[in-house]
C-alpha cells in the first residue's frame, strides 16, 4: 500500500458496510467517559518519563484511560509507545512520574503481581507446550484446581475457535491461529486490563481485517479495557474508542478517531494520520466566526468558517484532506476563496477511488481523491492527464493549525 488511503471513507459507510455496522453497535461509544467530569479514570499516567541512558524514550506523558475503552497508542517506530506499554505491564519502571491502575500505585510492583496481561507482538507462545498448556499456564501459576483450569481453558479456546487444535504445538499452527492462542492465553486470567503490542502486525491484510472485528467483539463480550500499541493508523481507526498519537516520546494529541482525523491540532498529526495537503500562510482576517488565510503556494486565500486562536502575524498552516476537495471541469462559481484551477499531472486508479495530483499555477501539487461512483469503463468520460480542472472545497473543510 504505497498511497495511504483516507481511512475515514470506510467508517462513514459505503465501501465497507461491516465497519460501519460494527462501530454503531459499540456500547461505550455513547458513554464517552472522557467527556464526563466525574468519571474516574481506570489507568492514570501522571507525568511519566523514561530514560535509557541519554535517550528519553517517554517524555513527561500524562494520560487518563477509562474502564471499557479500547485506547490505541499510535506512532512511528521508536516514538516510545511500546516503552509506555511495557511500563504499564511492569517490565520497565518509570524514571519519574506515577502510574496507577484502578487507584493502586504501580511503583515497584513486578509484572507477576499486576492485574494486567499482555499480548506480545511476537505472540511469545511457549514452543515446548501445546496450545492447551499455553493457555493454562497463567491459571496454573495461580494454583487453581485442575478441574477449573480445564473448564476455563476449554471455554477460552471455544471463544477463539481453537477447540479442535488444543493438542497442537505452536509451530504446527498458522499465523492467524497463533495470534488467537496468544489472545486466549492473555485473556484466560480475566484481566481487568489487556495490553496488546501490535496485535495484528504479523497477519496478512485479509486476515487482519477479519481479526480486528473479532477483537472488538471479544472486548465487548468480556468488558476488558484494552490498551493497543500500533503503528498502523487503519488498525487504530477501526479498533479504538480513543487514539493517542505519539512522537518522540510525547503524546501529541488524544481524541476519538474522528477527532484525530477531522480536527488535528498540529501539522504532525494532520500529516501522520491519513494524507493531507498542507499550506503555509498567515491570517489576513481573524474573526470569532471565520478566518481568511493567505497562502502564497495556493495563489489565493482559504476561507475557514471557524475561529482560530493564533497570534496575529504568526505563521499558520492549513490542512486540507484530499477527499474533501471537489474536482470538476466546470468553474464552481464566480471566483474568490476556496477554489483554484490546475492541471492534472498524475492519476492513480485504486479501484474504489482514484487519486489525482493536480498542479496549481504556482507550481505546487495538490492531492485530490475521488470515489469511483461510476464504472470506469471505455464509455465513461473520465478525467485524464494534462486536463485543466477546477478544484473547490467547503468552508468547513480546511483545518488551521499553528504548530
Amino acid at each position: 500500500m504505497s498511497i495511504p488511503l483516507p481511512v475515514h471513507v470506510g467508517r462513514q459507510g459505503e465501501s465497507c458496510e461491516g465497519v460501519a455496522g460494527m462501530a454503531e453497535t459499540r456500547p461505550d461509544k455513547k458513554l464517552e467517559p472522557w467527556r464526563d467530569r466525574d468519571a474516574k479514570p481506570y489507568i492514570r499516567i501522571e507525568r511519566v518519563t523514561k530514560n535509557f541512558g541519554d535517550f528519553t524514550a517517554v517524555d513527561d506523558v500524562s494520560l487518563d484511560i477509562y474502564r471499557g475503552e479500547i485506547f490505541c497508542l499510535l506512532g512511528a517506530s521508536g516514538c516510545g509507545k511500546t516503552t509506555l506499554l511495557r511500563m504499564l505491564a511492569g517490565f520497565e519502571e518509570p524514571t519519574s512520574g506515577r502510574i496507577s491502575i484502578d487507584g493502586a500505585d504501580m511503583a515497584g510492583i513486578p509484572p507477576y503481581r499486576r492485574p494486567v496481561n499482555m499480548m506480545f507482538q511476537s505472540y511469545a507462545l511457549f514452543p515446548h507446550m501445546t496450545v492447551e498448556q499455553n493457555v493454562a499456564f497463567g491459571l496454573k501459576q495461580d494454583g487453581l484446581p485442575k478441574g477449573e483450569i480445564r473448564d476455563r481453558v476449554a471455554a477460552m479456546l471455544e471463544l477463539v475457535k481453537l477447540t479442535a487444535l488444543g493438542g497442537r504445538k505452536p509451530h504446527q499452527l498458522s499465523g492467524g491461529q497463533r495470534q488467537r492462542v496468544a489472545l486466549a492465553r492473555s485473556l484466560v486470567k480475566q484481566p481487568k486490563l489487556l495490553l496488546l503490542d501490535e496485535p495484528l502486525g504479523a497477519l496478512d491484510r485479509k486476515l487482519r481485517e477479519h481479526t480486528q472485528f473479532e477483537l472488538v467483539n471479544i472486548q465487548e463480550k468480556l468488558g476488558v479495557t484494552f490498551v493497543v500499541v500500533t503503528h498502523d493508523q487503519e488498525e487504530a481507526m477501526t479498533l479504538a474508542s480513543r487514539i493517542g498519537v505519539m512522537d518522540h516520546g510525547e503524546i501529541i494529541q488524544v481524541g476519538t478517531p474522528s477527532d484525530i482525523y477531522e480536527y488535528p491540532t498540529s501539522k504532525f498529526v494532520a500529516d501522520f494520520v491519513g494524507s493531507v495537503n498542507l499550506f503555509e500562510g498567515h491570517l489576513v482576517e481573524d474573526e470569532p466566526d471565520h478566518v481568511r488565510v493567505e497562502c502564497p503556494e495556493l495563489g489565493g486565500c482559504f476561507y475557514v468558517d471557524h475561529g482560530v486562536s493564533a497570534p496575529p502575524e504568526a505563521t499558520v498552516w492549513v490542512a486540507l484532506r484530499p477527499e474533501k476537495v471537489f474536482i470538476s471541469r466546470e468553474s464552481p462559481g464566480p471566483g474568490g476563496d476556496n477554489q483554484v484551477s490546475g492541471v492534472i499531472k498524475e492519476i492513480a486508479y485504486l479501484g474504489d477511488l482514484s487519486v489525482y495530483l493536480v498542479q496549481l499555477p504556482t507550481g505546487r501539487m495538490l492531492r485530490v481523491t475521488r470515489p469511483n461512483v461510476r464504472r470506469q469503463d471505455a464509455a465513461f468520460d473520465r478525467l485524464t492527464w494534462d486536463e485543466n480542472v477546477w478544484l473547490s472545497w467547503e468552508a468547513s473543510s480546511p483545518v488551521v493549525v499553528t504548530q
Partner: protein
Amino acid sequence: MIGRRSFLITTLMSFGFAFLYIPILSLIVYSFNESRLVTVWAGFSTKWYAELFQNEQLLNAAKLSLEVAAINATGAVILGTLAGFALSRFRRFRGRTLMTGMTSAPLVMPEVITGLSMLLLFVAMEQAFGWPAGRGVTTITIAHITFSMAYVTVVIQSRLASLDVSLEEAAMDLGARPWKVFMVITLPIIFPAILAGWLLAFTLSWDDLVITSFVSGPGSSTLPIVIFSKVRLGVSPDINALATIMVGIVAIGVVATGLYLQHQERRRERDVQAALANHG
C-alpha cells in the same frame, strides 16, 4: 571443462579424507593383528580384545575417566548455564564486556599454564586449610570443571542470545516468579544446548591429558594418562584395540545424533506444511 573440474574436486576431497582417516584406519586394522609387534602384520586375530578385558589397570582407568567426565560435565553445565544466563540477560551491568572476555579466556589459555596454575593453587590451599588433601580424583574433577565450564558458558550464552526474551516476559506477565520462569520456560527451551554443553564437557574431560597430569596423584590415573605412559614404554596392540572401541563408540554416537536431528527436522517440516495446509 566441468568434468575436469569435478575430477579435480574429487581428487582434493580424497586427499583431505585420506589425511583425516588413514591414521585411524591403520589403527583399526592393526588392532586385529596377530603379532605382538604393532607394525608387522601377522594375520587376523581378536586376541588383543580379549587381553584388553583382562587388563585391570586399563579398565580401572577407563572407569575413573568415565566418573570424572560425568561429574565434570554435570558441574560444568550447572556453573556454565548460570554464567551464560547472567551474561546474556543482564545486559547493561558494568564490566559486562570484561566478564565476557574473562569467561572465554580459558578457551585460548595454553593448557600447560592452566594445569600449572591449578597445581599451585591446590598446593597452596592444602597448606592453608588442609583441603584438598593431596592430589587425586577431587583435584582432577575441580580442574576439569574449571576449564570445561568456559566452553559450556559459550554454548549456553549463544543459545540464550537467540532466545526471544518476550517468552520469559510472557511467563512473568502470566504470574510466574523469575525463578519459576527460569525452571519452566527457559531451561526446557534451551535444553538441547544444555545437552550439547554436557556432551562437550564430557568429551573435553574424557580425553584431557595435559591438565590432568599436573593435578593427578598416585592411584588416580585417568585413561589418557595410562595410555600415554604405556605408549612411552612402547606401543602395545591392546592399546590399538582400546582405541578402536573408543572410535567405534564415538562413530555410533555421532551417526545416531545425526539421524535423530534429521528425523526431527523432517517432522518439523511436515508439521509446518500441515499447519499451512489447513490454514485459517
